[in-house]
């Protein structure tokens, strides 16, 4: 049995699953999250309309209220926006983009952070010093500022007509590059501990290659904290994207995330068409909240220090 299998085994078979069932908040959060992820991933199948195919829109249907209000219709359960797009469908697609950006950004930070953390922790010396100093520098700038910076750089090197098409990846890059340090620090600390343990020393003596030791012995032991950090980081990443979009630096209105939907709806807040901004806002809060509740629970359950 490999270490990964051992880890998975521990993950399912241990008292973790039992704890999960005993925590109603975590179960509810996980259920909500599951529903939202399904809606987002299967948006093209589940959404009642295709809001971002301009050919299917009709300006006649614009600004309809939700179905239960006067003037609303069941065709558009949560109403429509100024372009005649179904709000429910825009939320599905918006969630898809918010989630995709969040997950991809966190994965990026994990890959960068874990790699640099392993290198720093394993090799130590000046390699460690350089990497950790880079981390210090990065930490002296808040996430938004770094995202803003990367956004600017990509604008600088990219021709105008490509900017819109590449927005999605730019936002991922901007958020992902801003948040690797915490992963690097955690993995580095764990690696340093594992490195000095007897089994690693034994493995080294038996001339197992460095790579193999790192991947089969050190890495799996750092996974727990990384998973916790990544789950909590997902909430932060989704929020950061929303803030960037709100400031006009994130996703464009042609492929809006939840944050971009709220930005557009913000201008309509006083006009009485509250549903255009409030439902995406609600969806965003619900999404981030369930991620955070789940992440919180995971931390409590996996962190032996708090047991």
């Amino acid at each position, binding site marked *: 049995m490999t270490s990964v299998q051992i880890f998975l085994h521990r993950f399912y078979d241990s008292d973790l699953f039992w704890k999960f069932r005993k925590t109603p908040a975590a179960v509810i959060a996980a259920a909500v999250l599951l529903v939202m992820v399904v809606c987002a991933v299967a948006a093209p199948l589940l959404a009642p309309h295709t809001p971002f*195919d*301009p*050919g299917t*829109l009709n*300006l*006649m249907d*614009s*600004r309809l209220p939700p179905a239960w209000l006067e003037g609303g219709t069941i065709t558009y359960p949560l109403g429509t926006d*100024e*372009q*005649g797009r179904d709000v429910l469908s825009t939320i599905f697609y918006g969630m898809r983009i918010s989630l995709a950006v969040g997950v991809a950004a966190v994965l990026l930070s994990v890959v960068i952070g874990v790699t640099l953390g392993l290198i720093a922790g394993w090799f130590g010396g000046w390699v460690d010093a350089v990497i950790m100093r880079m981390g210090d520098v990065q930490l002296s700038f808040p996430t938004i500022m770094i995202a803003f910076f990367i956004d600017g750089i990509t604008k600088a090197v990219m021709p*105008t*007509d490509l*900017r*819109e098409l590449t927005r999605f990846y730019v936002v991922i890059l901007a958020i992902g590059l801003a948040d690797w340090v915490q992963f690097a620090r955690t993995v580095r600390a764990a690696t340093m501990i594992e490195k000095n343990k007897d089994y690693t020393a034994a493995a080294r003596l038996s001339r197992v290659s460095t790579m193999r030791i790192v991947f089969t012995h050190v890495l799996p032991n750092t996974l727990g904290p990384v998973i916790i950090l990544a789950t909590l980081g997902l909430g932060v990443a989704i929020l950061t994207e929303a803030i960037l979009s709100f400031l*006009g630096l994130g996703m*464009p*209105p*042609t492929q809006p995330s939840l944050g971009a939907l709220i930005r*557009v709806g*913000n*201008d*309509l*807040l*006083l*006009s*009485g*068409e509250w549903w255009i901004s409030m439902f995406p806002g609600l969806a965003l809060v619900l999404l981030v909240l369930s991620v955070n509740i789940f992440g919180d629970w995971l931390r409590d359950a996996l962190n032996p220090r708090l047991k």
Partner: protein
Amino acid sequence: MIRSLLKPLILAASIAAFGATADAKTLRFAESQDIASMDPHAGRDDFALSLLCNVYEGLVRWNADLKLEPALAESWEIISDTEWKFNLRKNVKFHNGNTFNADDVIFSYHRAGDPGSPFAGLLEPIAEITKVDDYTVIFKVKRKYALLLNDFAGWYIMDKEFQESIGAGKPLDLSSNAGGAMQTQANGTGPFKLVERQPDVKTVLAVNPDWWDERKHNLDEIVYTPIANNATRVAALLSGEVDFIRNAPPQDLARIEGTSGMKVMRGPHLRTIFYGMNQQGDTLKGSGVEGNPLKKVEVRKAIAMSIDVEGIKRSIMRGNSNPVATQLAPQMPYYDAALDVRFPYDPDGAKALLTQAGYPDGFTLPITCPAGSFINDEQICQATAGMLAKIGIKAQLNMVTPVQYDTGLPAGEFDFYMLGWAGLPTIDPYNIFSATVHSPTEKLGAWNPKGYSNARVDELIIKIGEETDQAKRQEMISEVVKTQRDEVGKIMLHQQFLTWGMTDKVNAIVPGDEYTRFWYYTMN
């Protein structure tokens, strides 16, 4: 914890409304941005001039009906084709008490007209200025020129002694601190004088009791606050913190009108909105087809016919626009109603035209759209994309910030773009034509890169600038308008409406050039 939070709120409620302390004759005014400085020569920036017209005055000015009337010049006469004599008004005092005379006019001409000043272009037709006596000056122009008075309405007179004493003898000196002096100081002859200014926070004007003209307004003070966020600005009006906002967003008008004690004053804007496009290039980048479809008049006409401008008016502008067929708004001088006939909205006909032009399957059209330059510009572009999709043209929307837009457009970076033009401060078709219709050259056509180009039209535009006879001008202007319309040089959308939100206490005028001429305002 909750108690400690609520306490200040309850306190705030108990002292009730904010306006209570403000004087009844104080007009509190909010706008989306602050003016760059109090220097009327620092930029040909209609936004700044639209406020500074209350502090400074030109030799002539626009009245409430946008007709020229004497201001610092009492009268003028045309001595020859190239010589204009102006008789200056006597007994006019600047705000600091200095007397206005010919030296100030000559100083202001050099300050604004010398090379390096942003106004050099406006005053370019002038060859020379001579002082006859303290209250008479003669302007010599380089060539016959029709619009001298129009241009003078946007060129304001400053006080020679004052400007020299504060070291701001030149506008726009970014290499030293000289521009900074004009950030918080102003000395004009206008109906209001500057009493306090914190850039980006607030600017306070007080009535000028020694104004030369008869006082029709009853304002004692104007407090101007920039509020960038649309929703916050409207909220400030609705909560009674400001009395007046210019350009209330169309979506909030119903709310403002539905609030007791609030109203919206509307007026037609001189600005018309249209799409300009690349008609010169041999290829259209990203179109996915050979050649440049926009070069073909059928394609341009098809696009024009595919746009449901009434639908845009209803859904996006909420009734606050007027579809137009030509670049001249109905309120613009020399407007020709006979030419203002749009191509019909006809998607099927448009599709047929497209097929006829050799594009039965359409093509991809990159549309560049400013986010925040014109009223609901982003939404209009998105709606356009939807309408184009119905005739088989796939729009590739590209939203850019106003500053990138203002950079990229004149540089010719965009192939299909939204633009609006009002012809300010000249208020004459010549201004519109020379900037957006004339083929691009060193001096003209700066906002028509790669765009519409017709040698006959170019020739007419030059003549329109020189001709002073009204009938002849009308004839030439109509020809330019008709030619461009028939060749679909621009795809016209609509004329914007001015929608100014205010409390019932305020009586304002809403002129088509968007200037706030506070000397016509009263408050109950």
